[in-house]
């Protein structure tokens, strides 16, 4: 038995895109681990911590918080960043993201070629749209981020806090918030986005 060969075939095995059931189970494991460690599974509060660390507590009491109490959350998202690096550099799948042919055809009609749109060939972000050379791309990135940050804080949670954690705890406010996610998401995808790139 050759351990080196087994290790490289293991890396190859992990490097293929993961099945949705495996991915979902892994996310449930993250929720369970965070809960066991006595913390919640929520990412968007990091933005509030950034505001607070930058001195936003001087203009709004909402940001008066002990940032040290949020260091576990900051550590978690730094871990996420490192995980993204590892996945892209050591576990990259040979093929771009295999979205459905219908979506590929539709995107072509609004001028987004896939996967040629993505310079890196891993198909995570349409860099032909979002890049530092395009003013509309910059505005869409900042504006879209703004809506995510504003909505997450107003709703007291994002996808991790409401769609995963909140629903797993059978919270009605989370369910209504997730319905809102879809109202906004469907409106953007079907009506506003084609207009923005058209």
């Amino acid at each position, binding site marked *: 038995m050759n351990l080196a060969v087994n290790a490289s075939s293991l890396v190859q095995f992990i490097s293929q*895109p993961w099945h949705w*059931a495996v*991915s*979902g*189970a*892994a*996310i*449930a494991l993250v*929720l369970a*681990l*965070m*809960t*066991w460690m006595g913390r919640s599974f929520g*990412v*968007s509060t990091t933005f509030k911590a950034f505001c607070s660390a930058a001195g936003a507590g001087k*203009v709004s009491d909402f940001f008066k918080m002990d940032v040290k109490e949020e260091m576990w959350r900051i550590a978690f998202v730094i*871990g*996420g960043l*490192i*995980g*993204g*690096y590892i996945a892209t550099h050591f576990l990259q799948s040979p093929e771009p993201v295999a*979205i*459905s042919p219908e*979506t590929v055809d539709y995107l072509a009609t609004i001028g987004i070629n896939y996967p040629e749109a993505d310079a890196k060939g891993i*198909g*995570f972000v349409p860099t032909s749209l*979002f*890049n530092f050379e395009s003013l509309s791309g910059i505005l869409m990135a900042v504006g*879209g*981020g*703004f*809506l*995510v940050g*504003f*909505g*997450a*804080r*107003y*709703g*007291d949670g*994002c996808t*991790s806090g409401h*769609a*995963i*954690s909140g*629903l*797993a705890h059978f*919270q009605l406010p989370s369910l*209504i*918030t997730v*319905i*809102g*996610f*879809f109202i*906004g*998401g*469907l*409106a*953007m995808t079907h009506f506003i986005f084609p207009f923005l790139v058209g």
Partner: protein
Amino acid sequence: MKNLSFLTVGVFFGIVMAKSEAVSWFRIHEMFRFESFHMYGIIGTAVVLGAASMWLMKKTKMTTLRGTLVGYNPMNLNIKRHLLAGTIFGLGWALVGCCPGPMYVLLGSGYTIILLILAGATLGTFTYGLVMKYLPH
């Protein structure tokens, strides 16, 4: 370092989000066009297995590593607020194709444009803090 355990879980989370392709703008666009089951499968599986594990932890009165019982701080029900907040979030999510968790993962994957999205999200959070008293809660 006290938070090394959270960093480790974060690394696992980052790998999962990237390998599941949930960080892909294209997967989010496809989801909102109902052209694939992929994202629904991921979220659905996570919620069902998550609910089962949360139920088990509460049922067995498991204590966490911080010595607390497993629970959830419920929000006050305000349908107008939840729908409005969710809709604003959803508009942004579908436009930039990533929610807060994947933003960090994508930045680690080498997409520097995410810095603008993170800056926008922090600005949005700050703006909420300024105008929150005018919004229904």
